[in-house]
């Protein structure tokens, strides 16, 4: 009975942190289990690396069964008991690997049983399994021949952190943004039908991704077309990221979550069903049809709006199902697979994010995304830096603005942590809006707020704003509504890869007629630009800032920036012959390049354009007049800042003289995941590349080669 001792025999520990909860995790399906719990019992999950006392080992855990599985076909003949053991070993393997590389932990742990059951019941790669977003696909990757590559996860030339078609034939569809899986699955199902094939198509989507409209567009179409496919809703009641704010867990946003929760309480339905069964028994056997009808209506009435929502869309609802019970999962999947002509089937699986790793289960954010950590203690290794992230600076700037102006409100799309608005919501709980994964709605919602005289700041990642582009044009820019867009993660983003890369925002924002487009070159500029955006009240504006930390310049007093003069850049270094005109974070690379060039005896001018639109024309004119070469540098694609400069120069006659103009932009291709330094290297936008470009334009090829070697 030693393990039953509660915390208050150890007064130094707080009772709520007692790790005796590992005694639970038992199968909840029978009362008899309670008696068995009285005996000492190892927690059924993570058996492989969990010692009797619940410790984790930092060495590689033993995984005898998993070692025999290289591909899903090796799982076909396993018994349920062996599948459970496989799931436990898979769990410890994931914890071990993610502890070494960092990555998305909680979501992967939650779907271990589901992944094992899917690969056991279905035949990938003929059967297509699509993982929405793809960040929960680590167990899938391990089981589909990529276990040995897991140490390279999210690194250059290594495994992607999401599903990727070019990586493996088992990854049916690439993902990174959410809510695309059902649409793609329907496309694959219809394609299969047209080609006359017979494979299964399964989409796994989370309840967070279900808050996006595209999921409903897809289900609506799926119900109509009636093609055979399976949609699995992975419901762990975590709708936003992180799954908590700074002070503790937060309830999920949106009405859908409570509808899904209601579905999980089956008691009233069961009682009614018992009654109905009793009644039909009395009426007689041939009333089977009637009883089925009663059942159908009863489900609709009692379950409320939940299952009927999916049923009305034309999907057959099954559930809720315990997503950590291997028996249940395998049974259901096999039954559905063996039934012909089902049309679209919707299986509602309930899981727990972070399941099987107590530190993750207890954490407020369920260890959604972690850096390298120590499995034994759950502590992440976060390096300390002198400066904070741009995200944090943005949040502080916005708070400072909102202190003086009560009309400022903030909107984000399920990314309270990533956008820094969790700090804002702590200070101004009523003025921050999390709309769920619904960027299109967020933008138009902000437009509506602006109509009423408020000052909305939409904090949406540069790549996620792509989804809301028409709303930006049609609802905001066309009507000239003063919505402010704070685009975080602009430029290359490192380990998340091309799906999260913010390379296009300068291009797609600066071509809009009414939009003010600006970019800070350091954190102090960010504070000023937040103030500038707050001050621009007659038209929409946007500013972009990269992932990463500030450079270490002094911050404005009280975190309150001073509005800049719109359309005015600044010169940072006065030099001669060559002018480097940078936009945004690229200015820092220009400064570094200038010092590299200085070592070879040339002092170049470095200017920070600050505004892409309206462009500082006087600055461009003066730079062209006094230099032989103008190089524009930005961490964005073609069609952005450099193109606007070139357009202006052409129209102004500045290209008719002897001055040379050269653009430096992101290359015309997608840069794979890797460290930020690696990606910048591949993009050709490091200070070395800029310095070498300076010399090669001047004809000093020797110096150019020296710098690049």
């Amino acid at each position, binding site marked *: 009975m030693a393990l*039953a001792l509660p915390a208050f025999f150890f007064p130094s520990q707080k009772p709520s942190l007692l790790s005796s909860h*590992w005694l639970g995790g038992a199968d909840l399906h029978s009362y008899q289990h309670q008696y068995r*719990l*009285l005996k000492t019992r190892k927690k059924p999950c993570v058996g492989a690396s969990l010692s009797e006392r619940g410790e984790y080992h930092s060495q590689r855990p033993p995984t005898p069964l998993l070692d025999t599985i290289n591909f899903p076909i090796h799982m076909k003949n396993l018994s349920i008991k062996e599948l459970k053991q496989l799931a436990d070993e898979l769990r410890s393997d994931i914890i071990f690997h993610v502890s070494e590389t960092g990555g998305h932990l909680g979501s992967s742990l939650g779907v271990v049983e589901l992944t094992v059951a899917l690969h056991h019941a279905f035949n990938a790669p003929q059967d297509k399994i699509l993982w929405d977003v793809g960040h929960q696909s680590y167990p899938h990757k391990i089981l589909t021949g990529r276990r040995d590559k897991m140490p390279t996860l999210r690194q250059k030339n290594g495994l992607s952190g999401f599903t990727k078609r070019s990586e493996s034939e088992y990854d049916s569809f690439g993902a990174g943004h959410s809510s695309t899986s059902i649409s793609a699955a329907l496309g694959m199902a219809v394609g299969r039908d047209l080609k006359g094939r017979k494979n299964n198509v399964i989409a796994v989507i989370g309840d967070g991704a279900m808050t996006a409209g595209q999921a409903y567009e897809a289900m609506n179409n799926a119900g109509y077309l009636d093609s055979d496919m399976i949609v699995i809703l992975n419901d762990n009641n975590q709708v936003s990221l992180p799954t908590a704010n700074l002070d503790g867990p937060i309830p999920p946003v949106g009405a859908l979550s409570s509808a899904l929760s209601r579905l999980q309480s089956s*008691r009233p339905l069961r009682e009614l069903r018992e009654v109905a069964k009793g009644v039909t028994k009395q009426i007689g056997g041939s009333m089977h049809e009637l009883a089925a009808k009663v059942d159908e209506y009863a489900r609709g009435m009692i379950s409320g709006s939940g299952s009927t929502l999916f049923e009305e869309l034309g999907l057959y609802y099954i559930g809720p199902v315990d997503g950590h019970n291997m028996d249940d999962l395998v049974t259901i999947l096999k*039954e559905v697979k063996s039934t012909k002509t089902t049309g679209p089937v919707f299986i509602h699986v309930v899981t727990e994010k972070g399941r099987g790793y107590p530190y993750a289960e207890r954490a407020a954010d369920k260890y959604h995304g972690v850096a390298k950590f120590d499995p034994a203690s759950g502590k992440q290794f976060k390096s300390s830096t002198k400066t904070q992230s741009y995200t944090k600076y943005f949040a502080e700037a916005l708070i400072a603005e909102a202190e003086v102006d009560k009309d400022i409100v903030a909107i984000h799309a399920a990314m309270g942590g990533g956008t820094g608005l969790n700090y804002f919501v702590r200070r101004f709980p009523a003025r921050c809006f999390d709309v769920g994964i619904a960027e299109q709605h967020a933008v138009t919602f902000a437009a509506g707020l602006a109509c009423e005289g408020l000052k909305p700041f939409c904090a949406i990642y540069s790549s996620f704003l792509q989804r809301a582009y028409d709303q930006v044009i049609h609802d905001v820019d066309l009507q000239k509504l003063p919505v402010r867009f704070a685009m975080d993660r602009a430029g290359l983003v490192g380990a998340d890869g091309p799906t999260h890369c913010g390379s296009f925002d300068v291009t797609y924002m600066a071509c809009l007629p009414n939009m003010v487009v600006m970019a800070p070159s350091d954190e102090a500029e960010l504070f000023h630009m937040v103030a500038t955006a707050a001050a621009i009240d007659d038209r929409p504006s946007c500013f972009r800032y990269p992932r990463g930390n500030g450079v270490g310049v002094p911050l404005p007093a009280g975190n309150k920036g001073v509005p800049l003069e719109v359309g005015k850049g600044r010169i940072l270094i006065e030099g001669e012959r060559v002018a480097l005109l940078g936009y945004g974070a690229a200015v820092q690379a220009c400064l570094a390049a200038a010092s590299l060039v200085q070592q070879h005896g040339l002092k170049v001018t470095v200017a920070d354009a600050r505004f892409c639109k309206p462009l500082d024309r006087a600055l461009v004119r003066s730079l062209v007049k006094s230099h032989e070469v103008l190089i524009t540098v930005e961490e964005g694609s073609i069609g952005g800042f450099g193109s606007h400069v070139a357009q202006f120069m052409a129209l102004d006659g500045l290209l008719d003289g002897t001055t040379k103009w050269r653009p430096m932009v992101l290359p015309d291709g997608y840069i794979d995941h890797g460290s930020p330094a690696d990606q910048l290297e591949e993009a050709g936008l490091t200070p070395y590349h800029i310095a070498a470009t300076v010399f090669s334009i001047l004809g000093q090829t020797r110096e150019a080669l020296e710098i690049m070697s």
Partner: protein
Amino acid sequence: MSFGVVPGSSNQALHVWPNHVPATRIGGGYRWRVAPRRREGSWSAGLSSSSFRTRAAVDERGFVTAKGSFYELLGISEGGSYDEIKKAYKQLARKYHPDVSPPDRTEEYTRRFIEVQEAYETLSDPGRRALYDRDLTRGLHLAFSTRKRFDEELEDRSGWRDCWQDQISELKRRSMNKDVGENLSWGAQMRRQRAESSIE
């Protein structure tokens, strides 16, 4: 130790586990401490009815457990904020912690401590608090019924299996009759074509 739950029939015995020292329930998951032994029969019968009123309960030793809601126990208003709940909990936990309780009243203080613990766990989790508030307005005082909540969830979960088993049978039944009649869906037409082409 008794719980403040009185099932429908007043003849039901209340359950005492005199030598059991309960640990605490953690977090929002479904994991549990060691469950106490229970008397056969009467407990489960009382549990299966889905609502019953609970007021004060007197156990065999004559201690009276508090009636009323978690809010009253913690001494805060029903609209209390997370900070208020936390503060109240910390105060009361310090007061009722068995280590600092007066020796003659350890048992009562311990029980109070557990109650306070449960109140905090329910009210600090916004989802559970929402459910609790809803039950409260419906007049169900499911106070201090950690045991009952566990069994409710257990029942819910076991109910799930019945539910989806029925759903699967229904799916199979439907699939027999699908794709017949006029106005076939696109998918049905394709299935029919595929079936015909495989017959040839």
